[in-house]
């Protein structure tokens, strides 16, 4: 039975349960109109429907997980399996070939030795499908009858349905949290393995990044994994060059939008700016790599800087800065707009001009929110990958010259994971250590920023 069909059956049975439950509830409410019903008939319907659909689907998921095991067991127990070779790899190949033919995924077996196994597979699959269906239907029917029998005029169907809905919501929110947690645990785990090869001191404070995925993992690797050039590249591109672009432009656009723009202009300019935040960063990456970087190189060469690279930190940083503008401006915009209008009036009534009011009252009052926005933007910028992968280079370079090529933490993570090295090699494992550092830094930045914003909100409520 295919998952789609199963879902369909579950929905159908659920609908039947819903109609039946509703009908029963309506009936006993009609029979006794003197008492106020505890729950409306719809809730009785939902109660039964949930009791039919949820156990059925839960069982189906369980069965689909169990079935391949059961099928395999029964095939191995058959006579045809007795002639299988002992050697694990060949054995597995034959079995999977036979299974593919049996389920219809492949037209014929490649190795004739697998042919006798097809029939046992077919039989077992058919048998367990039927068993599964019977069990599923029994469960559905039993649950349906049981829940249906519980319905009575004083039954609190609404509370129960709402409890089920709440449980679903809790599970949904747990998924995201647990996933993050799982990622973090695996990151930590791999990071510890990496530190088995390279000491944390060498990693965090070494100034030469030169991993060699082809080297023997047992050789001493300490001097190859100094991450300082990567941290520097990340900060230089993401927190310095990008912010030199994003902070003034973002702030100025926020000031224009909140203080000077006509409401009609603001009504379309603000959403337009925020849409920029939704542009896939790979698009910015193209722009950086194909337009901005060659332009910067040509300009640099024309003024006599011969060694200007076509993969400059400047190109990546500039484009990243443009990408970050909406983050800065929308937080600044919100913070300035949150300053009470009475501050502005108070300042204007003192004879201050509009620009004096903005400079001396509004911006200082909104400063915590603005700073928080900048921190969020920085954490966004240093975690940004596509632009730097496309426009910066993979050459680690500890330099202050923006025209030179540089690399960042995220670029190296991509490079190390897509390289040829095996998963036991420190080169590959270094990607996890880098990811862990990045995770910690952005977490701290976001945490501080959110705290600041919260304080700021409280100050004006």
């Amino acid at each position: 039975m295919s998952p789609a069909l199963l879902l369909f059956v579950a929905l159908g049975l659920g609908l039947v349960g819903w109609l039946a439950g509703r009908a029963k509830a309506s009936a006993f409410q009609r029979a006794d109109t003197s008492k106020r019903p505890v729950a409306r008939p719809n809730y009785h319907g939902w109660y039964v429907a949930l009791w039919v659909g949820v156990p059925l689907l839960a069982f189906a998921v369980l069965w689909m997980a169990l079935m391949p095991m059961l099928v395999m067991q029964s095939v191995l127990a058959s006579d045809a399996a007795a002639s299988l070779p002992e050697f694990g790899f060949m054995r597995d190949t034959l079995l999977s070939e036979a299974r593919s033919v049996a389920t219809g995924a492949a037209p014929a077996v490649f190795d004739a030795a697998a042919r006798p196994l097809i029939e046992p597979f077919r039989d077992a699959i058919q048998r367990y499908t039927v068993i599964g269906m019977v069990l599923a239907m029994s469960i559905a029917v039993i649950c349906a009858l049981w829940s249906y029998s519980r319905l009575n005029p004083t039954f609190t169907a609404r509370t129960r349905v709402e409890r089920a809905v709440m449980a679903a919501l809790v599970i949904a929110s747990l998924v995201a949290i647990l996933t993050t947690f799982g990622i973090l645990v695996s990151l930590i785990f791999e990071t510890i393995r990496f530190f088995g090869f390279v000491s944390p001191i060498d990693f965090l404070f070494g100034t030469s990044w030169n991993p060699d995925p082809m080297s023997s993992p047992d050789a001493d690797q300490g001097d190859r994994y100094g991450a300082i050039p990567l941290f520097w590249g990340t900060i230089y591109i993401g927190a310095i060059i990008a912010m030199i672009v994003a902070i003034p432009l973002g702030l100025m656009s926020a000031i224009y939008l909140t203080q000077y723009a006509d409401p009609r202009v603001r009504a379309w300019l603000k959403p337009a700016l925020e849409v920029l935040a939704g542009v896939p960063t790979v698009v910015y990456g193209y722009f950086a790599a194909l337009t901005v970087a060659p332009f910067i190189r040509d300009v640099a060469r024309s003024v006599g800087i011969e060694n200007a690279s076509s993969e400059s930190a400047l190109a990546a940083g500039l484009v990243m800065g443009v990408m970050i503008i909406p983050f800065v401006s929308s937080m600044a915009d919100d913070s300035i707009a949150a300053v009470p209008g009475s501050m502005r009036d108070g300042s204007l009534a003192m004879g201050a001009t509009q620009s004096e009011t903005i400079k001396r009252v509004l911006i200082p009052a909104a400063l915590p929110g603005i700073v928080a926005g900048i921190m969020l933007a920085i954490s966004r910028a240093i975690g940004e990958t596509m632009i730097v992968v496309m426009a910066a280079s993979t050459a680690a370079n500890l330099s202050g010259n923006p025209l030179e090529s540089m690399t960042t933490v995220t670029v190296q993570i991509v490079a190390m994971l897509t390289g040829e090295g095996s998963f036991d090699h420190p080169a590959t494992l270094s990607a996890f250590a880098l990811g862990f550092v990045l995770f910690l830094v952005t977490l701290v930045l976001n945490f501080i920023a959110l705290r600041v914003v919260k304080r700021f909100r409280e100050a004006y409520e």
Partner: protein
Amino acid sequence: MVTVRHENLPATDAKMRTTDVNVYYGDKQAIDSVSIDIPSQYVTAFIGPSGCGKSTFLRSLNRMNDTIPSARVEGTIELEGDDIYRSGMDVVQLRARVGMVFQKPNPFPKSIYDNIAYGPKIHGLAEGKDALDAIVEKSLTRAGLWNEVKDRLDESGTALSGGQQQRLCIARAIAVDPEVILMDEPCSALDPIATAKIEELIDELTGRYAIVIVTHSMQQAARVSQRTAFFHLGKMVEYGATEDIFTNPIEERTKDYITGRYG
């Protein structure tokens, strides 16, 4: 019809004079043909039911209505004979001469010192730190706040109590040495004790500045003002010496309002 009662109105020089002032918000007229003289030596109270246009009229006296895009003012408003709505009028100078205190205390989120120093700094009134210190002390003293805050001038103005905040705002207005102070229901957000302090302060400032106060409390108008104008539906209905308006109103609507029949 406007009743202006000249009995008990000694001739004084008018600090401000409005002639046939209309104020509109878009198409809606909020003030209808108001002509009034604001004397320089006294406190003038604007009373009337809420929504009758008192704040609107008050805000047109220092052009704070300019900050509302839909607002439009017709007629003439003069400050010592100079039309404040003429083209080329310097609004910055005007607002330095005609200060304003708002309904809700609105100190800046800066230190007490910086709140007071704000105006003198933007208008360039103080040469050097000592002069600025002197202005701050003088303003806070006049606003009756100096003794309460002199040891904590670095603390934020927003950390003061509501009544103190309002006196800080009055001190802030005084600091630029205005000629007129407009107050829009300055006590409506305060408790009775803080209100009494502000009224006392207004008494002390009387004579030094021309003061216009909007109030919804008739007792307050009676206590602090020497002139009262009663507004109703955008019109000024009756204007005269405060005791005449309260003890012996002529217009039916004034009578109804001060006897509490509506409002």
